């Protein structure tokens, strides 16, 4: 043992490393303080500007009225249960339909060519049509045909439209995941004797789906918001309930109530998505960055 090695052993850390850590700590504190002060200044100034503006009293009255908030809340909450039901059912169906379409698009058997063409055309066409137009076409158009055995309920067609529309997007998300799995994985699976379908099911998809969970959740945040579109078909969901209240009172607080209810659902989901992305990054980089 040399003299130089002795202190290292007693503290378990070289003086250089200790200094470096202390420096990093002070840097962190400093950036935290700067961040807090700059946020305070920016948001504080904004708040002062808004509150002292001449129209503030009127805005406060028509957008932030506590009485209207309380009065409209029960009805809107009741309507919001419909939103939740609609997108929960839609989400499950979308996951299934889109996965099927994605697998078809990535299939290689020449026998499946017509299906592959159909899936590609479906994604191209549906993704290009605004959801609101699809809603009119499905919700008013198909029931008007008076076909035998076709359901006529508004909620059925609302969910059907959302499934048709969002499946086209989610198919592409799945497809990106499937294509991101390296070709060697498939080759290795085939060399072990798995069929093409088996290697897709047991080797490619498990990796692909895990990779696309964050973008999938992102699409579902959008789906939750779009559940308000079904009001067009007459369904009294949260947005329509608030619109009825606003039309009666000319007070816009009811819209705020609906917005808050949507936020209560979408913000936790957005945070959860961020958490998953971070976790995934850690796994990919081995936690070294």
């Amino acid at each position: 043992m040399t003299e130089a090695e002795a202190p290292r052993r007693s503290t378990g850390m070289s003086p250089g490393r200790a200094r470096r850590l202390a420096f990093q700590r002070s840097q962190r504190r400093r950036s935290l303080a700067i961040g807090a002060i700059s946020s305070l200044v920016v948001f504080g100034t904004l708040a002062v500007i808004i509150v002292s503006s001449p129209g503030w009293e009127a805005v406060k009255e028509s957008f932030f009225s506590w009485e209207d908030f309380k009065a409209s809340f029960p009805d809107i909450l009741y309507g919001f249960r419909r939103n939740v039901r609609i997108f929960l059912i839609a989400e499950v169906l979308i996951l299934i339909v889109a996965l099927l379409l994605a697998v078809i698009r990535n299939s290689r058997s020449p026998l499946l060519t017509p299906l592959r063409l159909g899936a590609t055309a479906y994604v191209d066409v549906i993704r290009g049509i605004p959801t609101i137009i699809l809603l009119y076409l499905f919700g008013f158009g198909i029931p008007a045909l008076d076909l035998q055995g076709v359901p006529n309920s508004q909620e059925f067609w609302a969910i059907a439209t959302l499934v048709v529309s969002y499946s086209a997007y989610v198919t592409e998300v799945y497809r990106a995941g499937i294509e991101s799995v390296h070709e060697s994985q498939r080759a290795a699976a085939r060399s072990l004797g798995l069929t093409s379908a088996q290697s897709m099911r047991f080797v490619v998809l498990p990796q692909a789906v895990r990779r696309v969970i964050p973008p999938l959740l992102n699409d579902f945040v959008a789906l939750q918001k779009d559940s308000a579109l079904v009001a067009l078909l007459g369904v009294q969901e949260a947005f329509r309930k608030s619109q009825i209240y606003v039309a009666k009172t000319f007070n816009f607080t009811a819209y705020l109530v609906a917005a808050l209810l949507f936020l209560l659902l979408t913000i936790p989901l957005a945070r959860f998505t961020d958490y998953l992305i971070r976790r995934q990054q850690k796994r990919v980089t081995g936690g070294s960055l």
Partner: protein
Amino acid sequence: MKKSIALIAVLGLVLAGCATDGGDGAEEGVSCEREDLTLVQEGVLTIGTDEPAFPPWFDFDGGPSTGTGFESAVAYAVAEELGFTAEEVEWVVVPFNNSYAPGEKEFDFDINQISITAERDEAVDFSDGYYNVNQALLGFSDSDIAAATTIEELRAFRLGAQVGTTSLDFINDVIQPETEPLVYDTNADAKAAFDAGQLDGLVLDLPTAFYVSAVEIEGSTVIAQFPSGGDEGEQFGMLFEEGNPLRDCVNEALANIDLAALQQEWLSDVVDAPVIEIS
């Protein structure tokens, strides 16, 4: 000099007081001479209505500027009383849901089957009523709802109306159906849903219901009209920005117009729908 200005000011205030107290005391307060009118656009009378505008209120194809349809005819008659030629009337598109919201207006008045209600009156001003309106129920003549003859019998059905309308209020407050009514952005959407069989019955104002049953939706019929009580009941009024002095002049013009004759000309065929009295 100063004294006389003060006198004029006081006089003006007194007159303005008379005008608001009297409601329709236009002749005392505001001058309704054409050059004295406060207008959105100089030299033209700007009138708002929704697009598409439907018969029997307007001409569907030609738009509001044809003078065809009851409301178009009333609007041009008012314009004439105020001293405007037909060429000096300009129409702007105002969606129904925007019309009675508070705030600045881009029209001198809006005429779009808007019922006068106390709630709306807080945000805008209305002219005197130019039409006594009854709500009406539209249904298919071969469906179960066609047999209903009382309000109670209507409760079991799936009804619909446009959002923000007195028709919707009528469903909720008077009929009080067992299933929640369906509520649409526009009457056009509501008619599409009704035509697609998603509703048992659609509540509209009577002339509109009559037109829809006669022209637009085959197999539909006006199952009932619900008398609202004539001059004491529900009325359509022209809508003004809150505090617009033009309102008093339009009221004066309306008083000089033979509304009954115009009604006879455009809406005469709506009277023979079956009646359900509101208990």
